[in-house]
């Protein structure tokens, strides 16, 4: 094959361009710390990286939601536990009041104390922190009201429960939060297995309806009865009331356990997401980040090749027979 200056020159220029191109690409990778900055540079890895990023992004949101949920559930739990403590006090006072050594005046004083305790429970139920009632339903209104001695939760008389709609009204709508377990909404309602419940209804904490012997199940309503009886110096029903307070405490503990389970679930999910984030971040690094050590080695070898080709050029290009003719 006949070798000419023109093709020597062209091949040399092509080579030097390629070498400089490699060096410049490697420099880009080192300065940006990324293996690619366009999808076309590495289609499969880029497509996977985009997905991993989305997943990471979502998880961050879910973790935020879980944090909110955690704060809310903690407030609810402490509320329920406080009510439980108050009920222990109530029980003691009721036993004290049943004692026949008490005069009518003494009982009035106990009734007064019970009133204070009752108001304490009402306050706990009606607690509002940053625009939200701790025990409200979806409508976020003050849950409990006492009008003319009758107890209303979410506008429903707690002693006059006649049909499921009444219970529905009493409990109020529930609020759910997306925590990344496959949120599903159909026909305007959230599938409760696909999201976490944020609200705990005042109605289920305090109870509602009446027992078979016509006694109120609701704690406030029950306490109202106790207070009225004591004010009238009537202790005939105290034993029965005591049993009902014990029942209420059992129900309350069920609620506390329920909130506790939800708190645990929230903590577990958050934990799982954080672990997942660690592995996702690692995946993202593997996909997108440059392996500095090997890249530097490549970079050095590209640089060397480039310098060698420069040196070579100064020798190859001008020389010909003319350098040797006399």
């Amino acid at each position: 094959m006949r070798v000419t200056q023109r093709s020597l020159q062209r091949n040399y220029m092509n080579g030097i361009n390629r070498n400089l191109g490699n060096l410049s690409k490697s420099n880009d990778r080192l300065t940006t710390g990324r293996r690619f900055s366009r999808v076309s540079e590495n289609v499969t890895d880029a497509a996977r990286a985009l997905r991993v990023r989305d997943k990471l992004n979502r998880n961050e949101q879910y973790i935020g939601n879980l944090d909110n949920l955690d704060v809310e559930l903690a407030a609810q739990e402490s509320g329920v536990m406080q009510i439980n403590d108050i009920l222990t006090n109530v029980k003691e006072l009721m036993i004290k009041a049943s004692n026949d050594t008490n005069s009518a005046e003494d009982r009035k004083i106990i009734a007064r104390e019970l009133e204070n305790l009752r108001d304490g429970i009402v306050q706990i139920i009606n607690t509002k922190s940053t625009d939200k009632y701790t025990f409200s339903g979806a409508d976020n209104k003050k849950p409990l009201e006492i009008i003319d001695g009758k107890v209303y939760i979410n506008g429903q008389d707690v002693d006059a429960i006649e049909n499921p709609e009444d219970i529905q009204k009493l409990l109020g709508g529930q609020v759910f939060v997306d925590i990344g377990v496959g949120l599903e909404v159909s026909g305007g309602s959230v599938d409760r297995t696909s999201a976490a419940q944020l609200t705990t209804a005042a109605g289920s904490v305090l109870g509602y309806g009446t027992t078979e012997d016509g006694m109120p199940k609701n704690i406030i309503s029950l306490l109202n009865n106790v207070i009225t009886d004591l004010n009238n110096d009537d202790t005939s029903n105290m034993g029965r009331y005591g049993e009902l307070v014990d029942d209420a405490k059992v129900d309350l503990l069920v609620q506390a356990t329920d909130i506790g389970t939800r708190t645990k679930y929230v903590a577990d999910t958050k934990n799982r997401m954080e672990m997942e984030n660690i592995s996702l971040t690692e995946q993202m690094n593997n996909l997108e980040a440059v392996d500095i050590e090997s890249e530097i080695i490549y970079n050095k070898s590209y640089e060397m090749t480039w310098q060698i080709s420069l040196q070579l050029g100064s020798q190859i290009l001008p020389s010909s027979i003319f350098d040797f003719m006399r």
Partner: protein
Amino acid sequence: MRSTFLGFETARKGMAASQKGIDITGQNITNMNTSGYTRQRVDFVSVSAPTNARYRSVGTSNAGQGVNMGGVSQIRNPYLDARFRSEFADTGYHDKALSILDGIESVLNEVEGGLKPVFNDLLAALQDFSSKPDQVTNANIVLSSVKSVTQMIRSLSKQLDTLGEQYVFDLTVDVKNVNALMEKITDLNKSISESVANQTNPSDTTNINELLDQRNLLLDELGQYGNIRVIDQGDGTVSVEMNEHKIIDGTWHEQINLSVNADNTVDLHWQSSGQKVILESGTLKASYDLISNGKGELKGLPYYKEQLNIFAKSFADLMNQAFPTKDADGNSTGYKQIITGDLTIDASNITVSSEWLDDPSFILKDLDNAGSLDNTHILDLISKLEGKGNIPGFEGSFADFIDSYVTTLGQDKSYVSGRFDASYAIITDLENKRDAISAVSLDEEGANLMVFDKAYKATSRLMTTFDEALDVLINKTGLVGR
């Protein structure tokens, strides 16, 4: 019988030939870096003694009359020219396609920035809003993130349009170039054929070699615009076909007309027949495919605009069916329009409705009652924005949709880039092969220079020899006894 002074003529011819040889060597060396230059060579022919059957001179009296110059010819391989031009069209196609796809990718770059981040911001804002669905602050955050999404869509659409305009402009320049090239080639056809016809010495082609070089260079250049075939007509002209359509015939040439449509797509027509220009490869095809044709082998600008429009439309439809309006009795009466556009919402006109822009709490009002924590409609919206099957004709989610067109683009570009590298390697190889035949080698010319120099000196010596011999004959012969 040999004439007395025959030898002088032989020596003169030899000296002239050597000088011409040095001239042409000089021409080669000086044009070493002239693009398109083909090395030239003096064709030497030894002078044959005239032979005639009737008056045939006997013996060797007329032999040895020296050298004639048969002409100065180019050294070229037409087969390599044809291969080069067909491959050059391929290189041109992939080069142009690569540069356009690169432009599109720099707009639709989801690796750094793009539509995904603003879309994810919106999802985050909605998640926060779902925990506090009664807060104006959160409604405002949702408003600004929806605004970001619509602005981003509009900006991408605008950038694609600008890109389209730029490529249309580039194409008009290309078409002008092609038309100018065709005209120049016919001009050269004319000059070359006239020179061939007017040549007093038909073997002397020196004065057209440079014209041939120019024409070959122009033909090479024309070859990158479309797949051409060059046919030598034998009278000094060439005719050229572009994808089976005759574009140059002698001194006649075709013209390409470009028309730009309202939607910034283009059409190319032959002026002679008015038919559409259909090509197999070349930069014209690449430009046309990627500017005007959305459904070809490579997805072009119309495809990506269409994808953005589908995204914008589906997004708007979903957002406009998210926040219900209710009458006084709490019955649902429809949905609030929070996204608007022109008659049909698309990527170029999607925007947040003025009702919402004026009042961030627009999406809070008319719900059951103020302060409600009911977030079902927000969760519904989130599940639709994250879920699959909410874009007509597409199976996946919104994020998948973005991924899908971005990876389509990435794959196309990566494919074209590979093809370009391959065809560029072939072009380089062919150029080297062509140069191996046609380009100037300094070593060779240096050697030739010495050869012709020596030959010139030798023929000068020849003349001296004859001169001395005749000197003996003329001045020293017949002087017996003097």
